[in-house]
């Protein structure tokens, strides 16, 4: 039988506010354990939370970018459960009245566009960090509350995803949007972007949902895809073997490449949600929504279409360039200085990204600023350097951080376009290769290429190739 998977993702993203959601502690990463804490986030007796306005603003930006309906009235609730990374033993979250609902985003997989529904977006607080230390009597655990109270958005998708590749594409698209909005660092490895997946399988064509499992602990896009591939295969194998999928929470073991059961349904929690009495409700009116909407940046889809429509870039190129706001910003800046978008795109898609990836850098931290990239293209266009030399210059610029003109001058790479100077070299080459000259005259056109190459070699690639061709033909 052929099966299809039904996947929904629950994504948590840490918002990059200056201070925590409900107290004034910094959200800065790193820091010695328990140095970014105060009575409020330590959950000491008597403390009260006060919501950080920017958390709501970031939530609204995200909700609008995901095409959600913002609820005119929402409130916070307490989610009650005991765990030592949660000092109050309840998490302030949103339950029945979240910030926003009913949105969507579009993904493209294998050239096919799909619309994935977003069920809800809500605000909550992060928990602390536990370190387990082995030792006698089962060892012990250490708790660091620096991350406790850092604001999170939870973004829940509809079960609209059908393949691990789609799930990955959804996650990548979501990351891109969050980065465009500048609301989160989105570093999966550091935990500022996290994702749990609800997965079930069913015979292809069936409308009935199978029993689902929840998969956790996937710390990279690759892990997400691998874990889902494994879990789907596992569920199919269970069904094929005549068994039934057990409802459970699974964890992904990256090292072993398997999922394993963390807890079963019988152990499911009773969170006893109720309205958080220490926080007053939020009323979000149309004016506020419009104000946030007006402040939204151009989003990836719109930007991609602009690159296709205004510059005639291929859809693939536009997609790559707009997959990162920093890269798209880089592109726009270069084009504003050197208005040949196709040339800019070719360079960015080619050597620029290659060098960036090799150095493990983000576009925003490129050692070659867009102004210098434009200057390099300008040098090539003016004929000061050849295309081949331009590639060398770019590498040097990357390595040293020096400007295009400076590299060209320092390395003496200015193209030789002086017909007099080149004519002398052409004479020398012809004199040194009488046999090849003979071949050419006997109709072997290829011989010309060899002679051009010899001239280029003699000039260390600096000769203007067009001029060399012209001079050779004249002399022969």
């Amino acid at each position: 039988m052929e099966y299809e998977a039904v996947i929904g993702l629950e994504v948590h993203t840490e918002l990059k506010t200056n201070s925590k959601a409900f107290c004034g502690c910094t959200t800065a990463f790193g820091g010695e354990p328990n140095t970014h804490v105060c009575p409020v986030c330590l959950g000491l007796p008597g403390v009260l939370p006060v919501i950080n306005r920017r958390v709501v603003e970031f939530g609204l930006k995200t909700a609008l970018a995901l095409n959600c309906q913002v609820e005119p009235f929402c409130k916070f609730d307490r989610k009650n459960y005991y765990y030592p990374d949660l000092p109050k033993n309840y998490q302030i979250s949103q339950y029945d009245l979240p910030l926003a609902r009913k949105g969507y985003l579009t993904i493209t997989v294998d050239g096919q566009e799909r619309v994935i529904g977003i069920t809800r977006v809500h605000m909550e607080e992060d928990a602390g960090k536990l370190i387990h230390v082995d030792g006698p009597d089962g060892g012990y655990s250490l708790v660091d509350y620096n991350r406790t109270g850092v604001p999170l958005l939870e973004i829940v998708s509809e079960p609209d995803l059908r393949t691990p590749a789609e799930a990955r594409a959804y996650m990548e698209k979501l990351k891109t949007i969050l980065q465009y909005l500048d609301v989160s660092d989105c570093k999966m490895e550091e935990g500022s972007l996290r994702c749990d997946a609800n997965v079930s399988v069913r015979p292809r064509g069936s409308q009935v949902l199978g029993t689902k499992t929840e998969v956790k602990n996937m710390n990279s896009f690759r892990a997400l895809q691998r874990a889902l591939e494994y879990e789907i295969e596992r569920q199919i194998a269970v069904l094929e073997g005549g068994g039934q999928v057990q409802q459970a929470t699974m964890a992904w073991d990256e090292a072993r490449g398997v999922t394993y059961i963390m807890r079963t349904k019988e152990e499911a929690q009773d969170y006893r949600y109720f309205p958080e009495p220490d926080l007053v409700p939020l009323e979000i009116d149309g004016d506020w929504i419009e104000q946030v909407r007006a402040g939204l940046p151009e989003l990836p889809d719109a930007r991609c279409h602009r690159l296709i429509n205004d510059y005639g870039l291929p859809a693939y190129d536009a997609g790559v360039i707009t997959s990162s706001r920093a890269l798209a910003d880089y592109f726009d800046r270069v084009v504003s200085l050197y208005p040949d978008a196709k040339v800019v795109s070719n360079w960015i898609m080619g050597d620029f990204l290659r060098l960036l990836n090799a150095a493990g850098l983000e576009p925003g931290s490129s050692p070659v600023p867009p102004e210098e990239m434009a200057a390099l293209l300008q040098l090539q266009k003016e004929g000061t350097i050849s295309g081949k030399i331009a590639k060398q210059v770019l590498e040097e610029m990357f390595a040293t951080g020096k400007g295009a003109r400076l590299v060209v001058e320092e390395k003496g790479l200015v193209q030789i376009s002086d017909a007099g100077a080149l004519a002398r070299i052409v004479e020398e080459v012809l004199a040194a290769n009488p046999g090849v000259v003979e071949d050419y005259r006997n109709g072997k056109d290829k011989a010309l290429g060899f002679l051009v190459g010899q001239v280029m070699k003699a000039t260390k690639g600096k000769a203007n190739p067009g001029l060399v061709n012209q001079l050779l033909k004249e002399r022969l």
Partner: protein
Amino acid sequence: MDLHYLTAHELGGLLQHREVSAVEATEALIDRIEALDGRVQAYLTRTAEQALEQARAVDAARARGEEPGPLAGVPMALKDNLCTEGVRTTCASRILGDWVPPYDAAVVRRLKAAGAVILGKLNMDEFAMGSSTENSGFFPTRNPWDLERVPGGSSGGSVAAVAAGEAVYALGSDTGGSIRQPASFCGVVGLKPTYGRVSRYGLVAFASSLDQIGPITRDVTDCALVLGAIAGHDPFDSTAADLPVPDYRAALKPGIKGLKVGVPREYFGAGMEPEVEAVIRRAIAKLEELGAICEETSLPHTEYALPAYYLVAPAEASSNLARYDGVGFGLRVPGRDIIEMYMNTRSQGFGPEVKRRIMLGTYALSSGYYDAYYLKALQVRTLIRRDFETAFTKYDLLATPTSPTVAFRLGERAGDPLAMYLSDLCTIPINMAGLPALSLPCGFSQGLPVGLQLIGKAFDEVTLLQAAYTFEQSTTYHRRRPELGVA
């Protein structure tokens, strides 16, 4: 001169005129506590050294020619659920052990800024859950009017200290009557302000949507003075309303001519002691005599307030008290793993009433029962609020007994939780509606004080205080002192 029985405004006047120093006043109170508290048992923690230091600072300021205000140098004390930086705060619970908060409650900050001299921390029912102070995890407090009787609760230590002259005034907290009922039992003035009038930051939470801090004083003028010092917006409490705070003391002008007072008949139901009812009726007649227009009215959902309260308050408490788990502060009783450690700690740290309410609240919130219990209680809360809204379209104030009985004997109700809950019948509806209410001495029954409860419109403490002041000015109940066998 008996410094310990002066009111804050009287003592404040002497201090401002340099007739008494803050150190003298503080020493007088410390002596009084020394002499009496072995029998009254109002204090859990005494901070005599710190108090004298604060007193010296006030005296020094006055010596420099500064005038730090009417409460500066006046010795007072705090219910032990108000966090005090550097001074242990127990909530009368073993589970907090000797926990020392690293911060001051907002009201403590304000009082310190006003130059208050803090004598110590006062006994209470554990986590403010109780009506007699017998639920203290340490020892019960006695009623200064009859040491064999309870002072009421949960702010029993606060009212007993004020009634016995062991503090000029005190702060208490009131979730279902915990300021007013004991104030009534001990013959002092106790005000529960409007929910949102006073910041709760630093008040160890019992039921967050009901808790409110208020003054316990020996007369209405002090009540106004202290309320003015602690009221107002606080950026650390989302529910502390950003409204102007009137000058309550300046607003105290006798005269209630034409004031419309409703007397809800549901507050005079079964279980009321006839002699208490007679005292209350006479007090209402006195209000009429003073020019108020009193009229019987009805708050039809009153009988539902108590059951609804005993769902809402324990539900919130079950969550608020989850943090006492042996991880970050307070008591830890070891266990093989974390769950056992949690369970050992909480079982040994909490007293029986606290556990009972945690159980009740957890049950009310648990899956399958939320709608039947918790949600239902919130809906009933709406009906109770509407009763008051309707009444306040006709009346400026409501007048009721604070408690259906006078102070009962120690141990009398200890075995029957429901009977104990019933002693808050007259005070609970006001918390459910978030309204301001005060209890003031209005007579005696069996030689024990009886309190009249006045209930006002939201954020209209001024009318409440004015009516209470007018009543007080024409009576002498507030001047009577218990016989304690010491000078």
